[in-house]
């Protein structure tokens, strides 16, 4: 059994628990090859966990995770490291290596996985940095970069080996409007120019909806809804409507579970 070729990544019947709490309960999610797919949902619903399951940094308690025809939970540790060369990941913090400058960070995957001559590595690094607009920052150290610049350098590093699949973990969090705009443009541009499969995990509705070909909304360990951004905007599911409209109260209550307010106030008397 292998994944449908139209889909680069497929999660089939995946259940994942932390202690006794089910983060995902028998979910099926597929990511179409060559498209930008957004995974949205409220904070703490398990979006980053989903990304880690796809990258096999976590193992599901049940189910299958297929990436380009390989079922990840069945791979050995060394095969997993080989498989991960197909991935590029943009972490929420950027995760740049703090002891290396911008050039060395982007050159790192090339140095460890290829035997390219130094001149060619330099040319590739310059091209990747040019693509994210940071060729001029080549000699800077990570602590000399702003948050947005760090993510762009991390993006240049993520595409250094021309991966098949790019995973973005909350790429817009903590970014100013200009940096957000730059990232939105880059994600779409890189996807179309390189023909890769992009998965954007985010709770920033406007930005994610604007670049996604397809969206999943997850919550309570389930896929609450899926479709194109327009389809989800017009969904009649009240949970999806609450999320898409950003309503503070609704099926997801404003108040955390608590005893009756009146009883609580008068309880001491």
């Amino acid at each position, binding site marked *: 059994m292998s994944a449908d070729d139209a889909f680069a990544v497929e999660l089939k019947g995946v259940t994942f628990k932390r202690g006794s709490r089910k983060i995902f309960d028998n979910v099926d999610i597929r990511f179409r090859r060559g498209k930008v797919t957004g995974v949205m949902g409220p904070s703490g619903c398990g979006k980053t966990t989903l990304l880690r399951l796809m*990258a096999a*940094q976590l193992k599901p308690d049940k189910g299958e995770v297929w990436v380009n025809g390989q079922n990840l939970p069945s791979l050995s*540790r*060394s095969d997993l*490291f*080989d498989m*991960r*060369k197909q*991935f*590029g*990941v943009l*972490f*929420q*913090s950027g*995760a*740049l*290596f*703090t002891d290396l400058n911008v050039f060395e960070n982007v050159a*790192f*995957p090339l*140095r*460890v*996985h290829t035997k390219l001559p130094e001149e060619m590595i330099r040319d590739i690094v310059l091209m990747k940095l040019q693509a994210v607009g940071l060729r001029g920052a080549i000699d800077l150290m990570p602590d000399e970069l702003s948050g947005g610049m760090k993510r762009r350098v991390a993006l240049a*590093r993520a595409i250094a*080996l021309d991966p098949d699949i790019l995973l973005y973990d909350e790429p817009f969090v903590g970014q100013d409007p200009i940096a957000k705009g730059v990232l939105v443009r880059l994600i779409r541009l890189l996807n179309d120019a390189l023909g890769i499969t992009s998965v954007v995990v985010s709770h920033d509705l406007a930005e994610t909806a604007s670049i996604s070909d397809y969206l999943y909304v997850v919550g309570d360990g389930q896929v609450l809804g899926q479709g194109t951004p327009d389809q989800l905007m017009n969904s009649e599911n009240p949970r999806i409507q609450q999320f898409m409209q950003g309503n503070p109260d609704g099926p997801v209550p404003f108040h955390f579970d608590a005893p009756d307010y009146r009883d609580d106030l008068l309880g001491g008397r």
Partner: protein
Amino acid sequence: MVHKSFLDRIALFGRSGLDIIESMGRSLIFLWHVLIGRGGAGTGLHLLVKQLYSVGVLSLAIIIVSGLFIGMVLALQGYSILVDFGSEQAVGQMVALTLLRELGPVVTALLFAGRAGSALTAEIGNMKSTEQLSSLEMIGVDPLKYIIAPRLWAGFISMPLLAAIFSVVGIWGGAMVAVDWLGVYEGSYWGNMINSVDFYDDVLNGVIKSVVFAFVVTWVAVYQGYDCEPTSEGISRATTRTVVYASLAVLGLDFILTALMFGDF
């Protein structure tokens, strides 16, 4: 209610025991992957050399200064005791045997745990909290091979050498105090030392001790960093655990090794 609370305590005690056993199991699997697993991308001698500098060379100052003062104090204390028996000429022998058999390996291990061990834990923990370890995994580089293995080997290699330097500097410090200050005859200081120190019983046993301590201290340090909770508080707790666990392990193992090496049974 009291009965339930008592049962709860027993359950808690049992859970703590299971947690400890689980943690020990994890640390053994961790060690297995670091030492036995395949090399993979990104491993190489240059990483080991960098760590030998950071773990070994940068620890030299504290080892030399401590060795010097401990040797000087040993000579002072030894002289003040031996002079009452007219045996002050044996002070060189006493300083050398104490340093080679015990204080060299043990104090070096304790200092190493405090300086290099805690730094290793904090560095690896910080890499974990800033997702640098995850990032390496996603680039297809095994952090156990790229980050942990060079640090572990650097500790194994550098600590016995540091212990040897500690003992040599200590003996030299002892000579400064005993010979140059207290007036012990130089020939007696060195001659008694040469006659009484046995290569196998004293020097080699000291080296074996320091190799065992190096293994334990570095293993504890890198494992605590790798296994820590990736928060500021988690890193802080892991760093403390490194120093406490490594120091206790060194002292406990020292007793066992001494009993095996020098115990007459």
